[in-house]
């Protein structure tokens, strides 16, 4: 790890100001992704701006049609939240499947969404539910937010403050864990709303994506059998030492069926 300056502002505008004024500065939330990269000397920001003292970034609120989760809310809190469990059980289940207990206590939803790891779980939930990403300056729709491999629509000094999840009729998540890392080799989040079904896949490609043919079929008939025969194309899917693209494509269908099963149970 290289030396860096450390700031712990207590107002969002101060944090944003630090980010703009110090070139090569970086936000740190739970540090579960950032700190390992610093230790391996893969990143060497001159300053870290810690979000942990900012007011109002933690916690979960309900306004009937939407559940709002503060950016600094750790995965374990989402997983254990009675509110999330009752309104969007699939999302609580997703949070409970991230990493291990230590990672779930430290890692945050804001950090995960901002990082947009191609194998992370939250991006599937955020895109699958069509959530809104609330930032220090605006709200960005999930469909416009994830731009592929670690890329998002965030501006350099923009800070995620919360994620707003529309409450679906049903939702479920199924994750096939990569053997070693236990990130998603393939994870599928499915959500049924009054006006149709959304289905998002993580782990399979360079970033989270939706599968319109499956969404259409499930909008007609919200049952695993409706998508059992829908195969997705291997183009753009990842091949690595753990799984080739055709296996990932196969798993998308299997996990999509299991996600629907989970939503129905």
């Amino acid at each position, binding site marked *: *790890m*290289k*030396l860096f300056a450390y700031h712990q502002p207590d107002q969002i505008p101060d944090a944003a100001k630090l980010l703009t004024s110090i070139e090569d500065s970086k936000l740190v939330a739970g540090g579960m992704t950032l700190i390992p990269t610093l230790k*391996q*000397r893969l990143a060497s920001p001159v300053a870290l701006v810690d979000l942990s003292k900012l007011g109002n970034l933690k916690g979960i609120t309900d306004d009937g049609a939407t559940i709002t989760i503060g950016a600094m809310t750790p995965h374990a809190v989402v997983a254990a939240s009675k509110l999330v469990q009752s309104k969007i059980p699939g999302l609580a289940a997703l949070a409970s499947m991230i990493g291990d207990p230590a990672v779930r206590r430290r890692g945050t939803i804001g950090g995960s969404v901002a990082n947009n790891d191609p194998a992370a779980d939250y991006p599937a939930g955020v895109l699958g539910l069509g959530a809104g990403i609330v930032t220090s300056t605006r709200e960005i729709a999930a469909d416009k937010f994830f731009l592929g491999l670690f890329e998002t629509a965030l501006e350099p000094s923009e800070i995620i403050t919360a994620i707003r999840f529309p409450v679906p009729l049903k939702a479920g998540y199924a994750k*096939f864990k990569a*053997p*070693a*890392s236990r990130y998603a080799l393939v994870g599928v989040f499915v959500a049924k709303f009054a006006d149709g079904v959304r289905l998002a896949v993580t782990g399979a490609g360079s970033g989270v994506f939706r599968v319109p043919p499956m969404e259409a079929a499930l909008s007609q008939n919200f049952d695993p059998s409706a998508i*059992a025969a829908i195969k997705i194309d291997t183009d753009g899917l990842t091949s690595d*030492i*753990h*799984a*080739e693209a055709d*296996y990932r494509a*196969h*798993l998308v269908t*299997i996990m999509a069926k299991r996600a629907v099963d989970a939503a129905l149970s």
Partner: protein
Amino acid sequence: MGNVIGIGASPKRKEDQRFLTGRGNYVSDIKRPGMTAGVFVRSPHGHAVLRGIDKSAVLAAPGVIAVLTGEDVAADKLGSLPCGWGISDAQGVPMKEPPFPMLAQGKVRFVGDMVAFVIAETPEQANAAAELLSVDYEVLPSVVGVLEAVRPGAPQLFDDVPNNICCDWELGDKAAVETAFRKAAHVAKLSLVNNRLIGNPMEPRAAVAEYEPGTDRFTLWTTSQFPHVVRFLMGALVLNIPQHKLRVVAPDVGGGFGVKQFHYGEEAVITWAAKRVHRPIKWVASRSEGYVSDRHGRDHVTEAELALDETGKFLAFRVNTLANMGGYLSTFGPNIPTNLYGPLLGGVYTTPAIYCNVKVVFTNTVPVDAYRGAGRPEATFVLERMVDVAASEMGIDRVEIRRRNMIPKEAYPYQTPVLVQYDSGDPMGCLDGALVAADVKSFGVRKAASASKGKFRGLGYSTYVEACGLAPSRFAGRLGARGGLYESATVRVHPTGQVTVMIGTHNHGQGHETTFAQIVSEKLGVSFEDVDIVFGDTDRVQFGMGTYGSRSLVVGGAALSKATDKVIVKGKKIAAHLLEAAEVDIQFEAGKFSVAGTDRIKTFEEIAGAAYVPHNYPLEVLEPGLEEQAYYDPVNFTYPGGCHIAEVEVDPETGTVTLVNYTAVDDVGTVINPMIVEGQLHGGIVQGVGQALFENAVYDESSGQLLSGSLMDYCMPRADHMPMMKVATHSTLCTHTPMGVKGCGEVGTIGSPAAVINAVVDALSHLGVTHVDMPATPNRIWRLLQNASLPVAAE
């Protein structure tokens, strides 16, 4: 009378108190005055010519004290890292043994090969400076797989090692095997890969070195399983430091599994450098650094054939293996796939003729050496897979074919056609015990239950034997060992009756401090609490070969037992003098010396006290003191074995294999501490399951990059992968070790991979699957099912 806790008891492990309360003392805990930090610069290329190194930017960086490279090593005329075994081919031509410089010279031969050592005031400064080293590499094509390495036109690692073949080794009667094959009613064939593994002990390797000008002495603290051997190899053969001027300490070590039983270049470099900079230096490997520098294990490609008569009796077994050595010969490297492999191909069977050819091959990968089991898991995997293949081809039940070929209990001692003679064993007894413990009778019910959930269930057997307790020196010498393989122990009885044992083995998780204390407590009748075991310091312990090859109890425990007997003999002399009786009339039992047939006794403490206060001793016949030493060299290997039964469930939709039941009935001879033995079996089995289902070291073919270079990509077995295991012992006593012990450190790892893969194949056999290579990952199983003869039942 104290609190005797003897053989057969399961006291809590003495050493765990300090480990669990954070009071262990590991190498990275060591701080020396004025200590500096060292960092190795390693090759990022699999294969390259080293055209030049420019140190200037590093030397100018803040805090840098020195930068050392292969040129400095050459200028100081230091030795090459030695190989402890010299094997030969069938004509007696010695293996090719190219030099292994501690810092690369001329060429780098694997990603991780050491190019320079940077010493700075702090670890941060050393790391930052190391990034500035400018190395001019001329990158060459790499070759990482054994099949590719021996092909004509393959990149050549060394100018004088044609086709990268270090040695073309063989064992057994080739002609007898060919004759038997001609007469066979059936010949079964099998091609397989034994996957490459990375040991991953919890504590990474580390070293601290210091030079004291006042005494002209060096001290090296290192994460080693055998500090005396490091002192010898490094002092005598690499750095030219006289043995009495070099102290090697291996304090608490957090796991080894073989990874720490070699003399590593890092140890030599840091010790040499400590004198050059006149400051103590510490180096601690990161996990990532361990992946590209800890010696790897296994990595074979094998073709095997078994000849059988019409009743399924094995007539002959022929095995051709290509074994990966990596870029250089490590300490035991060439011994593992040859001497620890070929002699095990007889297994528990009466196969009369066996021939084995092993081509030991250099590649652009981390050197390969012993990893828990070392050679015997590879042999067991070939043989036990082969037996299943033959059984299925001939339509004979897998248990039945084993029974037909097993060595009966009465036939021991049993001479195999491949050098070794088993002294004792009861493979049939282990098999029978395991069949009951695993409830094989109701397997059909469980299989049907799985089928009703759309899952395929399979059962797999492995009836195996291994050779451990390394090793009888005379035997090992004939096979190419360049040193002895005995062990030593000193039993020091203090004036107040407590005991300190100095032993040449090394405890790094095995529970020696407990097991060895139990032996002394039982034999001398002293309190378990009153026995301390000292190991791992060449200044405190006389000599020793260390811990590997399940040798600590078998060889070290035997030395301890012998030394303890000598203490009793001396104690009797003292008692005879004090009790004014003839020495032959003194009896020793339960901590008391007595004159036979009388009530005249002296306690052990009284004798100990008298030994150190010899006021009226007959000094011409009796020396003061009560301390004895023994060296023990075994007359044979020991042969633990047993039967493992694995039960798996395969999800055909995803290809996931789940281990649902595991049963092991092992013959490890006398059990000193059942709890510790159970722990060794558990750990060993999990490591074997890791090889079968999860672990795989993967290199990129052309660049030689290690693709599975972190825990994110190299899958270690985890607690939730394992069912509750049923382990039991079914012991026959070793006939030649003092206590009848056979060793238990590796049996789990040796028996389990074949059991698991045999179970996976069994689960899929109805689809025409006849073999599955390790690790049986979901991706691999799914692909097999795609190509299988029957379509996978759709839901």
